[in-house]
């Protein structure tokens, strides 16, 4: 292959607990995850010369995270685009390493959303803020899920997509979750009822939360976090793990526009950039780690990334196509169990990079045989109004 191999993921860690019972802080989750990810790589704190932080733990991260970690980085990047922040961070880390500004980049995430009882999956939202867009929207009582449900309704209207087709995403993801002991424990700790593989009829018969989306199409609300270490080729050669190369990246945002198409997301802009830069096509992907806040998120993003033509996602996912044991039918989806059934503390983007890396190292609990290429796509903000898209294409040697 002719791709540039100028930055690689060399260390990862996923914080195992999804319910810290208020005993651990987001900062502590970030620091512990960072230390384990560095250990995974065979590196140390002193090797880190660049930090990337979405500021989710508060306290003006650009000023305070280096001190908290005890580092003196040359590059500090505080991009916050919600759940897609970590795909943006990976893209920026690669750019900074390529430019010679950094050799070892550290990305961290920590959240106690579950302990804080923050309403992410099925909750409401508060009053008007001083942002003009918020000042127009807040009176309508749109919940987070209703925002996504409006994309689903329009998708059904334009393309004939059905609830049964959307349910395929929940079913495949839960099947993968049941194979991942950490996901099973997460569902136990969060007191999911009836923890087992699901069927399409389970999903479409679960309680309606915001038409047309049902309970089993919504992500969980967990605690959690993780870390990713990205290094230059010279450093990566000496790490104890096999490098997982960042081959391409794309970034975009989208917002409500008069006459705009709500069914098409910012992924339609970020995806082609990333695949073009990587010199590969969606059909070559072995694994697709796609931000699954809700079932419709995955369906729209799969289309926008180019796995199938716009509007054909419903038919494309039918028949269990997204399962990890169907390698000839396209990529396996969210093989860790996803935000739907394993881990969603509010900004899931980092877990997409973690599981894609596990797959390319051969370490997933739903391992795709001989996986060589993976895409991680984060969606931050809200799909049905303003959101950001970060696409990262990854490959192994």
């Amino acid at each position: 292959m002719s791709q540039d191999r100028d930055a690689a993921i060399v260390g990862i860690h996923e914080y195992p607990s999804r319910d810290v019972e208020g005993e651990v802080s987001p900062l502590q989750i970030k620091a512990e995850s960072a230390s384990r990810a560095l250990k995974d790589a065979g590196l140390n704190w002193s090797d880190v010369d660049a930090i990337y932080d979405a500021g989710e733990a508060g306290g003006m991260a650009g000023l305070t995270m280096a001190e908290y970690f005890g580092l003196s980085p040359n590059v500090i990047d505080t991009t916050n685009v919600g759940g897609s922040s970590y795909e943006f961070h990976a893209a920026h880390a690669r750019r900074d390493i390529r430019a010679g500004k950094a050799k070892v980049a550290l990305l961290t995430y920590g959240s106690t959303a579950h302990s804080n009882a923050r309403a992410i999956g099925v909750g409401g939202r508060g009053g008007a803020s001083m942002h003009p867009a918020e000042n127009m929207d807040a009176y309508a009582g749109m919940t987070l899920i209703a925002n996504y449900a409006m994309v689903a309704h329009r998708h059904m209207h334009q393309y004939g997509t059905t609830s049964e087709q959307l349910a395929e995403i929940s079913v495949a993801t839960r099947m993968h979750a049941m194979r991942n002991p950490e996901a099973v424990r997460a569902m136990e700790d969060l007191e999911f009822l009836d923890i087992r593989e699901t069927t399409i009829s389970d999903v479409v018969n679960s309680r309606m939360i915001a038409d047309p989306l049902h309970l089993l199409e919504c992500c969980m609300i967990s605690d959690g976090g993780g870390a990713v270490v990205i290094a230059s080729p010279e450093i990566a050669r000496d790490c104890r793990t096999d490098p997982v190369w960042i081959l391409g990246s794309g970034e975009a945002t989208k917002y409500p526009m008069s006459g705009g198409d709500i069914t098409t997301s910012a992924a339609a802009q970020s995806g082609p950039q990333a695949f073009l830069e990587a010199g590969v096509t969606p059909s070559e992907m072995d694994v697709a780690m796609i931000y699954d806040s809700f079932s419709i998120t995955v369906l729209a993003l799969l289309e926008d990334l180019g796995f199938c033509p716009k509007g054909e996602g419903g038919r494309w996912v039918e028949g269990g196509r997204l399962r990890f044991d169907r390698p000839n039918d396209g990529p396996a989806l969210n093989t860790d169990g996803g935000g739907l059934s394993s881990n969603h503390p509010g900004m899931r983007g980092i877990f997409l990079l973690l599981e894609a890396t596990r797959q390319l190292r051969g370490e997933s609990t739903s391992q795709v045989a001989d996986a060589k290429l993976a895409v991680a796509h984060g969606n931050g903000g809200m799909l049905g109004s303003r959101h950001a898209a970060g696409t990262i294409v990854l490959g192994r040697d």
Partner: protein
Amino acid sequence: MNEPKRPLPRADEFDTQAFWAGTKDKEFRYQQCKQCETVVFYARRHCTGCLDGELEWKVASGRATVYTYSIVRQSYHPFFRNQVPYAVAWVDLEEGPRILSNIVGVEDPLTEVAIGMPLEIEWEEHDDLCIPLFKPA
């Protein structure tokens, strides 16, 4: 105990204050550029279509259609939790603006709201402004 109230916009937000001021007179105001004719909504000081455009205020007819919608069955908000099930929708005004609002004036939102349905504006009165809601035309 006070009844929980609908969250209301702030009348002093820089960009949208003129829109909300117009609602006192039940006017749905939007902006259009005199030079490039771009319709700007939500309100801003600058034209999003050209660099030197001058925006002028116009008043929409209130005629609109449902672009897409959802029926909220569950909310934790102190006001909206008592409204379920209710319809939220992206509504396309005849003149171009797309606004997030509620569909009211239907007996059963579960069966009576549909994409493409024609609407007209229904103002909900408050002390210092009115809220633009929509009902079947």
